[in-house]
């Protein structure tokens, strides 16, 4: 019988070291949309999604330190272009379609992954397997793996 543990909102089936163990966590849905002024407003998306640059401070020489707005995949946000974003506001407000349950499974990294990441020796990763609208569906999927 698999070992079920809950720590806060995280459910783990198995343990941290056994290949095949699963984790389920709630989180915001990742969405894709055109970066319009409306989408980027703080009523719709989190404040850290913005187009252009913002000054966030100064360096030791008094030069401005600028922060470039990027999307959830790290791509520079350009107004009018498509972006990927995590719907933090909808998730925290409990709005329909904005939250999901992420399912992860612990596995060994592939040789190709280790080469790309320049990792030597054994290495494991909690890889995302899927996203589910309810915790029950995520648990069912986890048990079916």
């Amino acid at each position, binding site marked *: 019988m698999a070992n079920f543990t809950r720590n806060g909102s*995280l459910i783990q089936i198995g343990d941290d070291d056994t290949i095949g163990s699963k984790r389920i*966590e709630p989180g915001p849905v990742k969405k894709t949309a055109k970066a319009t002024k409306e989408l980027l407003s703080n009523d719709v998306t989190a404040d850290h999604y913005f187009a252009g640059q913002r000054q966030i401070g100064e360096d030791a020489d008094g030069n401005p330190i*600028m*922060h470039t707005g990027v999307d959830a995949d790290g791509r520079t946000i350009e107004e009018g272009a498509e972006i990927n974003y995590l719907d933090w506001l909808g998730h925290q407000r409990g709005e329909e379609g904005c939250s999901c349950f992420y399912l992860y499974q612990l596995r060994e990294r592939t040789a190709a992954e280790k080469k*790309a990441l320049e990792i030597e020796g054994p290495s494991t*990763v909690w890889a*995302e397997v899927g996203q589910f609208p309810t915790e029950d569906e995520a648990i069912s999927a986890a048990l079916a793996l």
Partner: protein
Amino acid sequence: MAFLNDNTLDNGLAALKAAATHIYINSAEPATYTAATSTNALGNKNFGAGAVFPAAIAAGSPSGRQLATAAVTDGSVTATGTATHYSVVTSGSSRLEVAQSLSASQGVTSGNTFTLGSATVRLPNVGG
């Protein structure tokens, strides 16, 4: 402004300051604790509880209250890639506390160390 866990919204910056343990650098914005600490992780610094935000809570600008992370001078890079985001977690509670983009993406190499300037986390008041 960064994503802040509901625990901080409910209990305030003092709870975040007391609990947070690690700063991670990530290859994409993490949606969960697991994504921050494994799936998208490129490196981390374990400060221990109470030391991620060492300074006192201070007035925020333009409003509210804020915390500043400790600067990272000797973070461990665990995988080669481009770090685009950082995250703050509380490992004992398996909680993603903060997720935010870096001011500029940076390439990191496995086995090296990374540095990160101090970042602020703010709870705004009237005025935004």
